C-alpha cells in the first residue's frame, strides 16, 4: 500500500516536473538553445504574483494568472533580449551567456519585489480524496489534471495546426523554412512564449503545493527542468514528459525508502547513469543528428 501511495505522490509531483522539462525541450528541441534564465523567469513570475496579490485581491486564482502571465512576459523578454539578436549559427554560446546575465537581472528584480526570504504562496482550495487507504491531495490532483490538459493542448497545437507544422519545419531546417515563407524570428518568439506559459503553470503548481516561495526557487526549477529533459531525451518533447514523471517517481520513492537526505543524491545518481548508458536520454536516439543540426542552425 505504501508503494502505491508513494507512486501516486510521485506521479503528482512528476507531472509538474514534466511541464518544466517540456519548457526546456521546446526551446532546445526547436531552437537548439539553452535558456539559463528559465528558473529566474519562473521566480520573477511568482514574485510578481505575490507582490500584486494584496493590490489585486484576487486570491489563489489571481496568483495563478499573474504567475503565468509574469513568467510568459519574462520569457518573451529573454527571447527578445538574448536569443533573437543571436539567432545565427555562431550565436548559440553568446545567447546562452546573455541569458546568464538576464538571470542575474531577473533574480535581482525578484528580490526587490520580495524583500523577505520566505513568502506564503496560497493554493487553490480543493477537497482531499480518500480512495480506500490511498490518500490524494485535492490540489495536487487538480494540478495533475491541468498538467495533462496542457500537455494535450501543446500536442494538438504542434501536430494538428499549421502553426505547429511551421514550428516543426523550422526545427528541421530554419533556413529552408525561412525561404519558404515561414516567419522564423516570429516563431522563435512564440516558442519562448509557449515555454513561458508552461513554466508559469509549473511554477504555480509547485509553489502552491509547497505553500511558500523562496529566492532559491529559480535555480531549483532550472535544475529540475534540465534533469527531466536529460533523463527523457535531449530535445524530445515526449521524452521530457516521461523524464519528468520518472524524476518525480524516483524522488518520492528514494525519499520514502532511504530518507529525505538521500533524495537528491539518488536523482543525480540517476542522471549520471543515464548520461553514461544512454547519453542522449531515454527517447533521445537521435542525439548525433540533433548535434549536427545544432551546427547547421543558421
Amino acid at each position: 500500500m505504501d508503494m502505491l501511495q508513494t507512486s501516486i505522490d510521485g506521479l503528482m509531483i512528476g507531472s509538474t516536473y514534466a511541464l518544466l522539462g517540456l519548457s526546456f525541450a521546446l526551446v532546445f528541441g526547436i531552437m537548439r538553445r539553452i535558456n539559463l534564465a528559465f528558473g529566474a523567469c519562473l521566480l520573477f513570475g511568482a514574485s510578481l504574483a505575490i507582490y500584486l496579490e494584496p493590490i489585486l485581491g484576487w486570491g489563489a486564482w489571481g496568483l495563478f494568472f499573474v504567475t503565468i502571465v509574469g513568467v510568459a512576459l519574462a520569457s518573451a523578454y529573454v527571447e527578445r533580449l538574448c536569443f533573437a539578436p543571436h539567432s545565427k549559427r555562431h550565436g548559440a554560446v553568446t545567447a546562452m551567456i546573455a541569458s546568464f546575465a538576464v538571470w542575474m537581472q531577473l533574480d535581482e528584480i525578484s528580490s526587490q519585489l520580495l524583500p523577505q526570504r520566505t513568502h506564503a504562496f496560497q493554493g487553490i482550495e480543493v477537497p482531499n480524496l480518500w480512495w480506500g487507504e490511498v490518500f490524494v491531495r485535492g490540489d495536487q490532483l487538480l494540478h495533475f489534471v491541468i498538467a495533462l490538459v496542457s500537455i494535450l493542448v501543446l500536442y494538438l497545437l504542434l501536430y494538428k495546426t499549421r502553426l505547429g507544422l511551421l514550428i516543426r519545419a523550422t526545427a528541421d531546417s530554419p533556413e529552408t523554412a525561412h525561404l519558404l515563407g515561414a516567419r522564423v524570428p516570429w516563431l522563435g518568439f512564440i516558442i519562448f512564449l509557449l515555454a513561458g506559459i508552461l513554466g508559469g503553470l509549473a511554477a504555480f503548481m509547485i509553489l502552491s503545493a509547497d505553500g511558500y516561495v523562496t529566492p532559491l526557487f529559480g535555480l531549483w526549477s532550472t535544475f529540475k527542468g534540465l534533469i527531466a529533459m536529460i533523463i527523457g531525451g535531449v530535445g524530445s518533447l515526449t521524452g521530457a514528459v516521461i523524464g519528468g514523471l520518472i524524476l518525480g517517481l524516483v524522488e518520492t520513492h528514494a525519499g520514502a525508502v532511504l530518507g529525505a537526505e538521500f533524495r537528491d543524491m539518488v536523482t543525480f545518481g540517476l542522471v549520471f547513469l543515464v548520461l553514461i548508458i544512454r547519453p542522449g536520454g531515454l527517447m533521445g536516439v537521435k542525439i548525433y543528428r540533433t548535434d549536427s543540426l545544432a551546427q547547421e542552425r543558421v
Partner: protein
Amino acid sequence: MLEVRNLVKHFGGVRAVDGLDFKIQQGEVFGLIGPNGSGKSTTVNLVCGVFAPTDGEILLDGIDLGAIAPHNRVDAGVARTFQNIRLFSELTVWQNLWVAWRDQPGQEQGWVSNWFGRSPARRQEIQKLLEFSGLGDKADHLAGNLAFGEQRRLELARAMASKPKLILLDEPAAGMNSAEIKDLCQRVLAMKEMGMTVLLVEHVMELVMNVTDRITVLNFGKPIAQGTPIEIQNNKLVQEAYFGSAENAHGGVS
C-alpha cells in the same frame, strides 16, 4: 516580369556577380548558364533573398524585391528549389507541401481552415499537385524516406505550392541520370504550358537546350552572351568560356 538591373554582389574581394542585367518575360523559361563559379547560384540567392545585393535592383512586376524580407518574398511571388535537396525530412510529403502552401489568389480560405488545413477543396488541390509530381500515392510517406528522384520532384512541387509568379530552379538536374533528366524536361515544359515563369540555373545542357526560350551566359559574374539556345550554342565567346580558346587549348588551364 522579372527585371534585374546592374546587379552586383561582392564577397570580400570576390566579385561573384558583377553588373548583371536581364529581363524575363511572363510565361518564359529563362536559362542562366556558365562555368563553375560564374555567379549563377549567387544570382538565385540574391533574387530569393539569401543575400542582399551590393548594388543594383531586382524588380518583380515593378516591385523592388530588395525592400522585401526573405519570408515575405514568397508572398510577393518568388519560389525556389535548392541545388542540394532541402526537404523537411522529418515531415511527410503532404506536410512538406502544406508548409509552403498559399491558396490560389481569389480562392483564399478562412482562418479556421488555415489553422487546421482541413478544407476538402484545398486537400483536393494538394492531391492534384502531388499527382502532377508523380507522388500521388506517397502523401503520407516521410520525405526523408523518398528515393532521390522523388525528392527532387517533391522539391519542385513544394516550389509550385506557393503559387509563385516566378520559380527559381537551382540546378534541378544535379545528380540525375539521363532518364530522370528526360522526365524533368517534360515537367518543366508542362509547367511552362501551365503558364509559369521559370528561371533555370543549370549545368546539364540537355535540359537547358531543350526547355529554355532564352539564355544568358555568365562568366566571372558578367554576362557574356544572350540569346536563344541555338544562338548560344554557336556563340564563339561561350565556347571559349566553357572550353578555353584555341590558343591555350594545349597546356592551358582546364
